[in-house]
């Protein structure tokens, strides 16, 4: 045993052990990616189940229908008459309709400025006070006048007016029900939810005149099509990749699929055969949506406030009509009505691959953690390597040439720390630029920035070599610190937004293997070209082209998400990924031997 220990300790000093970490890093990245691709298999995913027993989904008989069909048609007539009117006129008419039902109505103005454009409007909402409840809790039914694709949500608004009239006649509600009609899908609900929780910016958003209790859940209805539908599409992604409690989705799937025979889909998978390719596709689409962190419907703004919310969109050609949709909503509300506390039993962090298959955080988190760990492994390896005598160029009075020194060589930390700090703080510039530029300037600003981005590493490297002449050890330390910071940010981010951490980690993984090539200009050029292809700017352009969006749209949406919803994806891209990329590019262009030549000629 002692011999084994001393043998292991001697191995500690063996220089060959430092050849291992790059392979270890590569292994981590590969295992992380492969792990993700294994998840849709039956052995690694689980069937969904209802965790909160109070929900009892699909157990109630839903009575919506019959004469409510006529009421719906009447409200639809009203809504059709309002189609071309202004926001204020629409709200005036809706207010008078709802007041006629006997509900209290409130209105709220909001004005958001983003990318030089003004997004303003007025929300109108009504509170149905539970006749036998104590007004300490509420559930929300939302219909946006225009949905996320700017289509008119006629049936949705008509449906919630009908449901308002229908719900008023029941005395079994234990929570207040709030009916919210917003002019658009993102700014309106965000303004309303912020004001409801008193977290709004008074300069941009008015306070709410009426409030009820704590919000326990929200359902948004997005019913655009005029003909009968076949299935319901559930949209559940929230801002910053936060998801509602899985129980809510399971309840809706259960209620729609059980009594009513309406199938449900996720992530715009209009056809899903529950085989591996479709499951993988659902999971990857979900990850992409989560990673971008944008609001995908009226429900997204509720989720950061710990209010579980989903948007229901009927689609397809079938024989289910508005009454069926109404019954789904009624059934869900009856289930939410049973809750005594916030949904907390089921998972908050999950990846759905099919409406009844998911993986929870314990199963998928290691993949992002491995990708983040690869940076940390490389950072530690580089730190140890920088302390070894071979790295220091002809200056080491510290290193004893004869015996193998047990102590590390002194590390000159100031320059690497300075370079990494400067790179990190430089990230604030593109962040400020892209969030505050007016829309007309966005595309030219982006292209100017991209060209500057290609030139910047060369400029910085030239400055470094001329004024500071860093040694090989200092380049190793620059890379070590930059990778350490990257690993740290990504592991912290993985707990908050797994998909963003995974995607950024994957795109930044080439940085682990970058190093100076003082004597091989061909490798240096190849690495520089490769790095420029995986730079944040390049990825943005490639992504925009692949999904047929203009760069202008992408940047405008990003600025809107930052200004209105508080999405922090731009911060991660420009203040975590880009500085690491910059430090990596500067390292690749580094020429540590120049110092040797200078020392010899001086």
């Amino acid at each position, binding site marked *: 045993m002692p011999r084994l220990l001393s043998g292991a300790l001697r191995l500690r000093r063996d220089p060959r052990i430092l050849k291992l970490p790059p392979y270890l890093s590569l292994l981590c990245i590969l295992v992380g990616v492969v792990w993700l691709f294994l998840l849709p298999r039956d052995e690694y995913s689980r069937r969904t189940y209802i965790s909160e027993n109070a929900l009892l989904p699909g157990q109630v008989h839903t009575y919506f229908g019959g004469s409510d069909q006529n009421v719906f048609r009447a409200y639809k007539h009203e809504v059709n008459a309002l189609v071309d009117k202004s926001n204020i006129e629409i709200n005036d008419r809706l207010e008078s309709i709802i007041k006629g039902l006997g509900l209290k109505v409130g209105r709220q103005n909001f004005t958001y400025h983003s990318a030089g454009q003004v997004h303003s409007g007025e929300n109108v909402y009504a509170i149905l006070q539970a006749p036998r409840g104590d007004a300490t809790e509420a559930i929300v039914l939302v219909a946006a006048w225009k949905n996320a694709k700017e289509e008119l949500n006629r049936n949705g608004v008509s449906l919630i007016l009908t449901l308002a009239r229908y719900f008023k006649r029941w005395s079994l509600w234990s929570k207040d029900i709030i009916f919210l009609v917003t002019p658009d899908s993102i700014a309106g609900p965000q303004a309303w939810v912020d004001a409801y929780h008193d977290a709004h910016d008074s300069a941009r958003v008015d306070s709410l005149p009426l409030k009820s209790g704590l919000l326990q859940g929200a359902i948004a209805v997005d019913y655009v099509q005029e003909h009968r539908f076949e299935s319901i599409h559930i949209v559940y992604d929230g801002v910053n990749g*936060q998801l509602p409690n899985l129980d809510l989705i399971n309840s809706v799937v259960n209620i729609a699929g059980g009594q009513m025979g309406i199938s449900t889909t996720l992530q715009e998978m209009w056809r899903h055969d529950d085989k591996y390719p479709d499951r993988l596709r659902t999971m990857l689409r979900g990850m992409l949506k989560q990673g971008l962190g944008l609001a995908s419907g009226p429900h997204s703004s509720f989720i*950061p406030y*710990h209010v579980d919310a989903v948007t229901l969109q009927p689609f397809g050609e079938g024989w289910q009509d508005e009454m069926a949709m109404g019954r789904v909503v009624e059934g869900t509300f009856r289930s939410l009505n049973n809750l005594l506390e*916030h949904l*907390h039993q089921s998972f*908050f*962090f999950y990846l759905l691959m099919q409406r009844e298959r998911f993986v929870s955080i314990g199963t998928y988190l290691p993949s992002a953690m491995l990708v983040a760990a690869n940076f*940390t492994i490389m950072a*530690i390896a580089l*730190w140890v390597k920088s302390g070894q005598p071979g790295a220091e160029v002809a200056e080491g009075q510290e290193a*004893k040439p004869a015996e193998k*020194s*047990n*102590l*590390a060589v*002194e590390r000159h930390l100031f320059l690497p720390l300075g370079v990494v700090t400067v790179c990190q703080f430089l990230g604030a510039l593109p962040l400020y630029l892209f969030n505050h530029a007016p829309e007309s300037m966005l595309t030219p600003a982006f292209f100017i920035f991209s060209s500057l981005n290609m030139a910047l590493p060369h400029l910085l490297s030239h400055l470094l070599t001329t004024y500071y002449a860093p040694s090989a050890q200092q380049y190793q330390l620059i890379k070590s610190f930059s990778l*350490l*910071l990257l690993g*740290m*940010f990504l*592991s*912290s*981010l993985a*707990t*908050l937004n797994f998909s963003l951490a995974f995607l950024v980690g994957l795109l930044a993984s080439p940085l682990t293997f970058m190093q100076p090539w003082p004597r091989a200009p061909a490798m240096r050029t190849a690495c520089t070209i490769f790095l420029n292809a995986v730079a944040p700017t390049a990825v943005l352009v490639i992504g925009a082209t692949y999904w047929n969006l203009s760069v202008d749209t992408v940047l405008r949406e990003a600025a809107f998400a930052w200004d209105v919803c508080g999405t922090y994806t731009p911060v991660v891209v420009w203040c975590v990924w880009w500085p690491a990329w910059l430090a990596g590019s500067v390292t690749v262009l580094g020429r540590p031997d120049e110092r040797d030549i200078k020392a010899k000629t001086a």
Partner: protein
Amino acid sequence: MNGGKVTLGRTAGLYLGAAVLRLALFVLFPGLPDLLTGRVEISTPVTSFKRLQEGLFLYNHNVSPYDGGVYHQAPLFLPLFSLLPSFSSLPIFTYLLYIVVDLLSADALLKIADSGEAGSSALFTSPRREKRWSGFVIAAVFLFNPFTIATCIGRSTSVFTSCFILYSISNAISGAPFTSMVALSFASYLSMYPLLLLPPLLLLAYDRAPPARQSNLALFATTHVLIITLVSTILLGMSYVLTGCSWEFLASTYGVQLTLSDLTPNVGLWWYFFIEMFDSFRSFFLAVFWLHLSSYVGGLTVRIRRQPLVVITLLLGIFAIFKPYPSISDTSLFLAMVPLYRHVFPLMRYTFLVAAIIVYTTFLGPAFYHLWIYAGSGNANFFYAITLVWGLGQSLLVCDLTFAVLRDELEVERPEMVGKEIRQI
């Protein structure tokens, strides 16, 4: 003379730069001070600026500030902050006060560093003392440390305690033991724990006292303990008068620290233990935890008698980990004193690990706190686990520094051990 002038200009520039940075952060980001004041890593129940405002309001309306059960800080803060113009109308004066306190602390630190006490105390001279950072660098590291800046912007009142501790040390080094003791009594009055720094500070003052004052140690110690007792009594008497001639403030200020009645989460170890503890065991565990905190004083003072400044530094580190309501302010004070020992850094074995742990936990802590409190998807265990790792990082730093200092002393006593690997038998 020329060199002195250059240094003075450089130091003034440093202070100006630090003041401008803090002022810029206060003015350009109006939401930032309140955001940072609300964070549990910066504000604790005994140092929070929001609670100070509450106490101030009650004080200004002739109600005892301790009636609300929210204010747990020293009574003498109240007249001090009442002198400043009202916070709601003119916040700039409060900001300037905190910036001035930060600069005073940096100045005291500069004096400590420039005296060279760290490298060569009265009884021990390190063979490595040439490799040191100047006072300018150490003051710069303190002033631009993100923890210090965050504490200043968050307006935690522990900056006053830190300032008095640093003044006490710098006066002890420059041969003014009386002023040193007065500063220490102020620091102990504000927060209780600086009183535990008395033994090493006495030794430091004694070692560095002008020869005229250096009688024997016992006499020196007795006189100065009497000075502290006297000044503390005066301060407590003033507080008694201030709070309407009653001693109730003792229970709300020192009592809260002794009995841990406020269990708001913080970056320390205590709150989690005491939340889940049955009442019958409470007093026992309180005694154990306080005994643990105070147990290091005697051992370290006796063992490292020859370098009292090291003892003070190590104790500040231990306090940052084990005191009842720690915050990043205590860590920033400890991290301000550590660079004084630059000359033993090559002997330290875990610098990278410690730096990585501290940086990682600084980001993971708020992330898990957000998941616990705001997103509702985590629980207290995640946050507490990260604060344990934070404590682990600081403990590693304390132990590593102790090792390095002891190794340094060993190399003077036994020159044949230089460069040899230390193996634990």
